[in-house]
């Protein structure tokens, strides 16, 4: 029993990390119909902005601010301007592939210009553990969990309750009609990418103390988050939480009770059951009427 709780808690902690990154996937999809295969690298990069600032002897708070600013600029505005804008009209795949190239670009770029080594990353959350149901969980994990929840509910409310949020969704679903109604399409898309950039920066600051700052740390993270987003139902932000936590927990239980050798695949196949049973994902809306 203690084992079970231990596994559950550890799974939730990892799952919260996946969820945090997965939110970005669903956000981008829901508000601009883009899939960003560089999302993992987007989480990796802000940590290096911070490290670079720290190397220049900036205090931690300032370094984090600089990291956030740089992310908004590079991963938000610049990404949107240089990569997304020219490709948005051409469907999902070319842009997805382009972001795949971007992920190579960022990964290799960081490796060459900074280091191939993992660097420890300072945590702005206090260390230590709290005891919960007999399991020790780090405060870091708890804060990631809480943060992910807060972000999801805030974003959900923003998209659903505010006019700007709905304009963003409208832009994604039918940009030409949105333009025709006078929705500032460009600005809506920019908001989307700025929010995403802020999100990945914060995710980066929370996750890097656990995962370490390393050029390749986005690989597994990005993939896991992609899966979490799909399982949650790609077009629902709150699905990302469910998907992330489910993936984290299932992964741990599968490794403990099914097979460690096949750990990479067992959870995926269990989650495929979810997808085949509910093709729109756990929380997703059914596809629109086609005829």
């Amino acid at each position, binding site marked *: 029993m203690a084992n079970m709780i231990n596994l559950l808690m550890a799974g939730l902690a990892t799952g919260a990390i996946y969820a945090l990154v997965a939110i970005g996937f669903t956000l981008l999809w829901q508000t601009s119909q883009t899939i960003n295969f560089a999302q993992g690298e987007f989480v990796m990069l802000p940590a290096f902005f911070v490290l670079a600032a720290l190397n220049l002897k900036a205090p931690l708070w300032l370094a984090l601010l600089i990291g956030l600013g740089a992310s908004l600029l590079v991963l938000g505005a610049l990404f949107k301007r240089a990569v997304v804008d020219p490709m948005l009209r051409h469907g999902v795949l070319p842009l997805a592939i382009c972001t795949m190239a971007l992920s190579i670009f960022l990964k290799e770029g960081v*490796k060459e210009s900074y*280091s*191939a080594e993992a660097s*420890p990353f300072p945590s702005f959350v206090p260390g230590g553990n709290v005891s919960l149901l007999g399991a020790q969980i780090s405060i870091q994990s708890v804060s990631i969990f809480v943060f992910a929840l807060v972000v999801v509910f805030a974003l959900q409310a923003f998209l659903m309750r505010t006019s700007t949020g709905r304009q963003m969704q409208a832009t994604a679903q039918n940009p030409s009609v949105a333009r025709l109604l006078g929705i500032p399409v460009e600005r809506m898309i920019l908001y989307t990418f700025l929010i995403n950039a802020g999100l990945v920066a914060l995710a980066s600051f929370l996750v890097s103390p656990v995962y370490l700052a390393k050029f390749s740390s986005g690989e597994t993270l990005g993939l896991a988050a992609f899966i979490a987003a799909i399982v949650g139902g790609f077009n629902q932000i709150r699905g990302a939480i469910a998907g992330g936590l489910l993936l984290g927990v299932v992964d741990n*239980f599968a490794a403990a009770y099914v097979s460690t050798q096949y750990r990479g695949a067992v959870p995926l196949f269990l989650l495929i059951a979810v997808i085949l049973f509910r093709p729109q994902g756990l929380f997703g809306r059914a596809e629109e009427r086609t005829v």
Partner: protein
Amino acid sequence: QSIKLISVGELSGPGATVGTNFKNSADLAIAEINAKGGILGRKIEVTHYDSQSNPGVARALVQKALDENPYALLGPGYSGSVKVTAPLAAQAGVAQVMGGEAAELTQLGFGTLFRTSFGQQSSMPKIAKYLAEDVKAKTVALVWVNNDFGKGGRDMVTKELTARGVKIVADLSTEAGQADFAADVVKVKNSNPDAVFVYLNEEESARALKELRRQNVTAPLVGETTLLGQKVIELAGEAANGARGHVGLTVDAPLPALQEYGKRFQAKYNYVPDHNGIKGYLGVYMIKAATEKMGKIDPKGLPEALKGLTISAAAEPGILMDLTIDKNGDLDRESFMGEVVNGKQVIKTVLPKMNK
């Protein structure tokens, strides 16, 4: 005219950390040698090719390297990549000084293949012996990374432990880059072993140590260089205390030469090299020593010159520690048993060369 070395290594992909350490250290060694006038008065020139951690690409690049008539080849670091490329080097008769640790590599009889570290066939018996005789473990749980490095070690240690009558009660494969070791540690706990053998890369070692401590595993944690190196201590903090095991190559070894090397490396690259770094460094000095023994720049003669060569640190400080290369291309030299105490690696015993 300069001496041309070509290095093919894992500079991107999953092995990037391995390959980059190897490359940086090789560069360091070459810079040092060139600063002192080179080998036999000739400067060394090196080209690095990136195998993307993919054996197929490595093969292509070794072919490319051989097309360029190098003096010797450095790398790769992944045993699989070594295995596909070794036949090409052998066919061309060019010495290949590489980083792979899989036991079988030097038993395939290529004749041009040379290690820069212990193969697992030398390190694992030492660990098995330590587990059986010093720790007096009757049962052991294995936690290993499922790539050619980890699997090779696991297979070897399993053989050695079984031969000594030690029972393997848990055999846990983990993934490279794995972040969450909760499930593995639960399994370790459930198997209730006398000792745990942990054979992972440095980062994963750190994470595994943290999780082992979190779940209060009290059995001794035994491993190789990758469990108790400086890097692991840096990443795992407190959790590293008590980890112990065999140390083949580490900058923390109680040898001034090794520590000096570590400092030079850190000064140049701003991080602590791991054992793969030392491999790249030694590789270059092995070539230097063999060449000087021959007294001429002769690529075809280099493999023969390397075989059976004993290099003393007194004569060639760059070799860091006396070593002997046997006729298969395996290394022999002293190694250590160490333990992490209060965030520092402490060497407990010095293990002599095997064939003294």
